[in-house]
């Protein structure tokens, strides 16, 4: 397949030869050592790290649509590790550190832009919370700096920081290592690297059943393209996790909601930091194409409709127009929603399921994109070694029975 290089770009640019496909189009075989359900970022990363870290190349990734077509292609591309609890900080900072080396690791430009992730407080109470978060995050060994209103204004000149603003700015904090990455490139880069190591990526292959032997152990899957046997099965299907759990006969503490995002027409560079407003839940960043990327809170009821409802879209767009008055006249180009797997304590579920041989990677809620490298790394570790990685251990499904929840709902600066 060959690596990518400036010389290669020149050669392909001058020659008429088409670029070769980045990954092999595979057909399912009868048996694999590991079958991964879901060809999003987490599934592809799991396959890549199984092959790269553990030498397990007899792996298939099964995707019912096209790879990266679910939440991996529907998020607002933000990466950060500014989490409150030490367990979460270790998890998400592993992810961010892997992201920092990922373009070189995969030989694929994921366009990581560590432009900073700024969280803005709009009241005395929010500022108290922000101070507490920023201190906890720093105590977790992760960079975070408190910002004065003047510094907020300097970082985001279009943000309404005037004294008469509807949401006056009291301060904030920033994680300078946070930022954005190109979401499609993350999926394609992992797919290309995994495929090069021998992983079969099988698109348009929907899993319809989990096969189990008389002892209850998972032995493979039934799919729209036939039966596939496997020693281990991994599920990495985000908002459809309970559908797979239903097939396997167990329950998960997961509720599926639509999370919306939208982008404006492209404009010249006006914002070089990611902004989260605590008062409105608005997320804003500017893509390299110049589009303003807007996100906000979840829709308010269970949904598998990848559309999003109007009241939430109005809230997001209204907050953007109010807090960034200069954006008020931009036209929106696209709006969409992804179906996210929300767990009561807003932390992911990693590791063993009640069905032996079936491993879970789910529950990332509204924040799965930033966690792709760590989710893949830790899931691969568990499948390959039979033991959970120390960073993943607190996130097991058992925590809902033992009560050792990691409640980031109130702590992480986002209501996911």
């Amino acid at each position, binding site marked *: 397949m060959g690596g990518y290089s400036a010389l290669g770009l020149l050669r392909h640019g001058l020659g008429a030869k088409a670029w070769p496909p980045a990954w092999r189009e595979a057909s399912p075989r009868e048996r694999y050592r590991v079958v991964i359900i879901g060809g999003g970022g987490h599934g592809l990363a799991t396959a890549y790290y199984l092959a790269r870290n553990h030498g397990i190349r007899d792996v298939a990734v099964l995707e019912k649509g096209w790879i990266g077509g679910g939440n991996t292609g529907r998020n607002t591309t933000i990466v950060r590790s500014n989490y409150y609890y030490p367990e979460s900080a270790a998890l998400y900072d592993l992810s961010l550190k892997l992201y920092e080396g990922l373009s070189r690791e995969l030989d694929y430009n994921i366009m990581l832009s560590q432009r900073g992730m700024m969280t803005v407080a709009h009241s005395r109470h929010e500022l108290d919370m922000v101070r507490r978060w920023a201190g906890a995050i720093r105590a977790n060994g992760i960079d975070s700096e408190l910002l004065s209103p003047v510094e907020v204004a300097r970082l985001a000149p279009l943000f309404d920081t005037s004294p008469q603003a509807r949401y006056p700015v009291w301060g904030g904090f920033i994680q300078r290592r946070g930022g954005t990455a190109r979401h499609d490139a993350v999926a394609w880069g992992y797919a290309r690297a995994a495929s090069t190591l021998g992983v079969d990526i099988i698109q348009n292959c929907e899993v319809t059943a989990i096969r189990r032997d008389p002892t209850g152990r998972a032995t493979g899957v039934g799919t729209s393209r036939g039966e596939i046997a496997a020693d281990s099965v991994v599920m990495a299907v985000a908002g459809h996790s309970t559908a797979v759990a239903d097939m396997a006969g167990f329950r998960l*503490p997961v509720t599926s909601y639509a999370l919306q995002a939208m982008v404006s027409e492209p404009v010249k560079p006006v914002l070089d930091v990611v902004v989260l407003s605590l008062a409105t839940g608005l997320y804003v960043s500017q893509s390299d194409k110049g589009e303003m990327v807007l996100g906000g809170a979840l829709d308010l009821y269970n949904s598998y409709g990848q559309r999003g409802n109007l*009241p939430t879209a109005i809230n997001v767009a209204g907050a953007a127009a109010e807090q960034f008055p200069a954006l008020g006249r931009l036209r929106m180009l696209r709006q969409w929603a992804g179906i996210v797997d929300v767990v009561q304590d807003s932390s992911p579920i990693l590791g063993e399921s009640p069905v032996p041989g079936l491993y879970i990677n789910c529950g990332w809620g509204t924040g799965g994109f930033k966690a792709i490298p760590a989710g893949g790394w830790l899931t691969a570790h568990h499948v390959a070694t039979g033991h959970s990685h120390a960073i993943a251990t607190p996130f097991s499904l058992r925590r*809902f029975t033992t009560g050792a929840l990691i409640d980031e709902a109130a702590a992480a600066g986002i209501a996911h």
Partner: protein
Amino acid sequence: MLLISCPHCGPRDEVEFRCGGEAHLTRPGPPDTVSDDIWAGYLFMRRNPRGLHYERWLHAAGCRTWFNVARDTVTHEIKVVYAMGQPRPECT
């Protein structure tokens, strides 16, 4: 935008309501006889179907009463609105 028929107030916009999640959950008991697994099931495990879902809603900005709704989670179509305490109606 959903148009939800509150049993008391009639059809209103969804912004007046709060969704309270899965309906027909029964608290297990008495507490000293309930295992950790059953508590976990009651507190955290939820039916999360792709399709018909029976759920509780509150008319928060209206009469402030709770009621049940059978709704499709893909199309969002509301099949039946029924009172708290009534059994699950059959829906197609």
